């Protein structure tokens, strides 16, 4: 599973070198936030079982730590990692040599400093009541600037691309690069700065939440999957002509799915029904993605070949997670099933399936591929890679089984308690520490010889 085949070619390394600094910064901050979020998630998992645990101090009560965990995971880990991943991927595909790396660095520093400030405010209890918008509203201005500086470079790289074919990964990256700031700005405006009245606010929030997960997280991850499959397997994408349809239907339906999470609320009936329809029509892009991904990988004993490749092993798990998510999401958006699992741990499971089992696994796989290219050194220990993979995989499967089954039971009136997630939370922490040791080993190996600073 080590990167034996890593032989940088001359042109690639020039492109890689030009983006190396910001990519290392984004990844290093992402890993730190990930480990912090995993520690917090172990604490909150214990608190759900024993609510006196660390409950004596208001700073560490469940309500604040749960919000902290969600924000660190979404804005600290996934978003930082996607900054780095999208930038590296777009630069590689367009052979773009990045001249203004310091601007992206600046953006990364602003983003992470505002996140630190926002996280402290959450712990102090100064937060809003909408998930992923908990940070106080003054944070949104600074993090918006940080985002523009950090994350719009894929668009610049794209606009300077050599003429010719635009590969499907580039579409998805470009789409997510534009969707995030628009969604972010509109939502903060309509929810925090000049709040919309009544039910519209809930609609805007759910739209933000869904766009953030589907069109920022998942869309960037899909771009990476489209890249790593042909890259690592050495094959072209199966039924590639379908990928255009997949892209447009994905972006068309994804942003309409949010009202399905508000079924039964005082929203006009037609908005709710359109949400249900869009959630089911998400099966169209998901069928296409499955054909593209699995068709390529399964052809000619490709699955066993992928299993023996570090990056593709993570990506493979991620693809199955995406397919499972799409099926469950479509089925449980329909009115009958939705009525059973609404407000249960089932939704926790669905969200975990998308943002961890799919998106985070893609990022893990991508990191194992990219980090050697931007640090010039190798992964410290294949054993740690195995430890990371297995603890994350077992953790994610057990968390899914626990939350989905318990959610169904809660909804059917078969149980009233909330399931315990301590076991998966501990597994995640172990895996992420293994991942962190490996990653920081590489980053600091480079540091000891160079003078570049990473975020600390």
């Amino acid at each position: 599973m080590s990167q034996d085949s890593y032989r940088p070619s001359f042109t690639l390394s020039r492109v890689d070198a030009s983006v190396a600094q910001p990519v290392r910064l984004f990844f290093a901050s992402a890993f730190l936030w990930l480990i912090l979020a995993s520690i917090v998630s172990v604490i909150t998992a214990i608190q759900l079982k024993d609510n006196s645990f660390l409950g004596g101090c208001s700073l560490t009560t469940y309500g604040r730590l749960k919000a902290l965990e969600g924000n660190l995971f979404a804005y600290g880990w996934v978003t930082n990692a996607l900054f780095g991943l999208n930038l590296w991927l777009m630069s590689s595909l367009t052979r773009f040599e990045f001249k203004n790396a310091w601007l992206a660095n600046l953006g990364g520093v602003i983003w992470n400093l505002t996140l630190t400030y926002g996280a402290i405010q959450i712990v102090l209890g100064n937060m809003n009541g909408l998930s992923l918008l908990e940070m106080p509203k003054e944070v949104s201005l600074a993090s918006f600037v940080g985002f523009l500086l950090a994350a719009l470079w894929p668009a610049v790289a794209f606009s300077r691309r050599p003429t010719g074919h635009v590969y499907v990964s580039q579409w998805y990256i470009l789409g997510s690069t534009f969707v995030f700031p628009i969604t972010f700005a509109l939502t903060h405006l309509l929810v925090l700065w000049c709040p919309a009245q009544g039910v519209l606010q809930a609609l805007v929030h759910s739209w933000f939440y869904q766009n953030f997960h589907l069109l920022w997280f998942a869309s960037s991850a899909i771009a990476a999957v489209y890249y790593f499959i042909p890259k690592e397997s050495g094959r072209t994408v199966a039924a590639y002509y379908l990928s255009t349809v997949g892209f447009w239907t994905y972006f068309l339906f994804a942003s309409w799915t949010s009202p399905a999470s508000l079924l039964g609320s005082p929203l006009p009936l037609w908005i709710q029904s359109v949400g249900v329809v869009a959630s089911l029509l998400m099966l169209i892009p998901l069928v296409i993605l499955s054909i593209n991904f699995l068709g390529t990988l399964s052809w000619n004993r490709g699955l066993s070949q992928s299993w023996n490749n570090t990056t593709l092993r993570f990506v493979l798990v991620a693809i199955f997670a995406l397919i499972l998510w799409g099926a469950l999401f479509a089925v449980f958006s329909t009115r009958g099933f939705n009525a059973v699992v609404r407000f249960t741990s089932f939704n926790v499971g669905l969200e975990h399936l998308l943002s961890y089992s799919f998106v985070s696994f893609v990022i893990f796989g991508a990191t194992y591929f990219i980090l050697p290219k931007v640090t010039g050194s190798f992964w410290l220990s294949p054993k740690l890679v195995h430890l990371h993979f297995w603890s994350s995989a077992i953790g994610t499967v057990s968390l899914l089984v626990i939350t989905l089954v318990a959610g169904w039971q809660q909804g059917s009136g078969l149980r009233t308690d909330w399931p315990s997630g301590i076991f998966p939370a501990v597994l995640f922490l172990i895996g992420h520490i293994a991942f962190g040791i490996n990653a920081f080993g590489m980053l600091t190996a480079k540091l000891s010889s160079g003078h570049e600073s990473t975020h600390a």
Partner: protein
Amino acid sequence: MTDQHHSSDQPRRPSAGDSVSDSRLVEAHSHLARDKEEPKEGFSLLPIVVVFIFCGFGFWAGLYLTRNAAGFSPSAFDLNAPREVANDGPKAFEPDLAKGEKLFLQQCASCHQANGLGVPGAFPPLANSAWVKGSEDRIIKIVLAGIAGEIEVNGMKYNGNMPNIGAGLKDAQVANIVSYVRSAWGNHADPVMDTKVAEIRKAIGSRGQYSPKEILEQHPLETK
């Protein structure tokens, strides 16, 4: 392994070796996106199946929205609400004076004039007329069946012949005209409903014009 023997549904190997360069990767896919399939024996099942499945989805989506969106009404919130509310139900008739005026100008104003004063000696006035302002049955009957013979209106005698204008109009149209006439030019009588028109139309059936005498026997002029 050469490219010609593959359907485009299947992956190909753009190059030997496990890892491909990025430019090779993009180039290989650009061929896939650009090149037309060579005609060959048999056909690939995948595209046609995909198209059928997606059409099925689209059909279902249309069906679902028709049934569950309450006609895209902004005020329907509950799928389980009674049907009438969800579907906007049959609307109650409300006399529409604007429509009544429009119909009056088309159907009646050539004789009675747009100002409702008629033509002295030829056509009786409607403004401030006891025939108009009193019983709604009387005016509806006249509009539906017409009236002919010597008639005295506001102290002046006329010998006119009014055809059965209302016979060719719908109940709601007649109700709109009558309501307009009863409220215009200083008249202040109540509007009439389409159900009333329908009721009278059914009661009088198909008949010839009334004479003033006959209708006054049924509905004498009210004394103020």
